[in-house]
């Protein structure tokens, strides 16, 4: 059996994943000039890895029933990765973080890349919102049967 709650859960997981991605992008943009981090060295660009997981929170599955809902896949953030690209070196001998040769290591963040990723995350988020709206509409009109 299937119900609309699984649809809501799935779209909700999609929204949560895209929000996590937005957080990573915001962090990258905010730290585009950060040269000092607790780990040492310049800020490293962060990215999230998405992973699909079976929707196992359904009522039927909790009760152990043979439920086809495992065919529906939620999405989750499985990992936050740090970009391995080499930092950008700029010559600025007066900077406190400059090395012996006078070069400062700046983060490997490309603002254009972050902006396009941000647009993509926004659109995906909106797609999930649309799906939730459709689920809600359908569920509410099903409640009107026979009225």
């Amino acid at each position: 059996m299937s119900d609309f709650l699984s649809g809501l859960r799935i779209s909700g997981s999609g929204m949560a994943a895209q929000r996590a991605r937005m957080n990573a992008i915001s962090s990258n943009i905010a730290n585009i000039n950060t040269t000092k981090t607790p780990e040492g060295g310049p800020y490293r660009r962060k990215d999230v890895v998405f992973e699909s997981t079976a929707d196992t929170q359904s009522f039927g599955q909790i009760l152990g029933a043979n439920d086809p809902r495992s065919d529906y896949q939620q999405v989750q953030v499985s990992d936050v990765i740090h970009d391995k690209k080499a930092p950008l070196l700029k010559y600025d001998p007066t900077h406190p973080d400059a090395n012996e040769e006078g070069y400062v290591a700046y983060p490997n963040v490309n603002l254009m890349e972050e902006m396009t990723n941000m647009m993509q995350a926004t659109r995906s988020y909106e797609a999930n919102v649309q799906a939730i709206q459709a689920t809600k509409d359908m569920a509410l009109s099903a409640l009107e049967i026979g009225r």
Partner: protein
Amino acid sequence: MSNLFDKTTDALATSLQMRQIRHSVTASNIANAETPHYHAKKVDFENALAAALDMEGTQGLSTTHGDHFAIGSKPVTSADIYENPDVAVNNDGNTVDLEKEMSALAENSILYKSALQLINKKMASLKYAISETK
């Protein structure tokens, strides 16, 4: 044998159930539109539903007497969910086409609502028949 709820109501109810499954599958595809190696899923039920309802009247035995049992028409209870084969694979191994999924979502939602409308009309005519003596 006469039923208060006829074959059409059963068909509409099954179609609602199947559309709900398709809705969840589409929502799942949309949520995973950017998950690497996720393969878009698809549900087919129209043919199975048509066969079960015996639209052409070729499979079931016809009932010519009130005591006859109708044979050959069984309601469909499970949908066939499979990985959509005719899609392009992205660089990250994902096969979701977000535009297609969004239009499938809208289409499915409209057809769900139209099935609901039909059920409501059926109910309304039943109600009308019940309340006619008042």
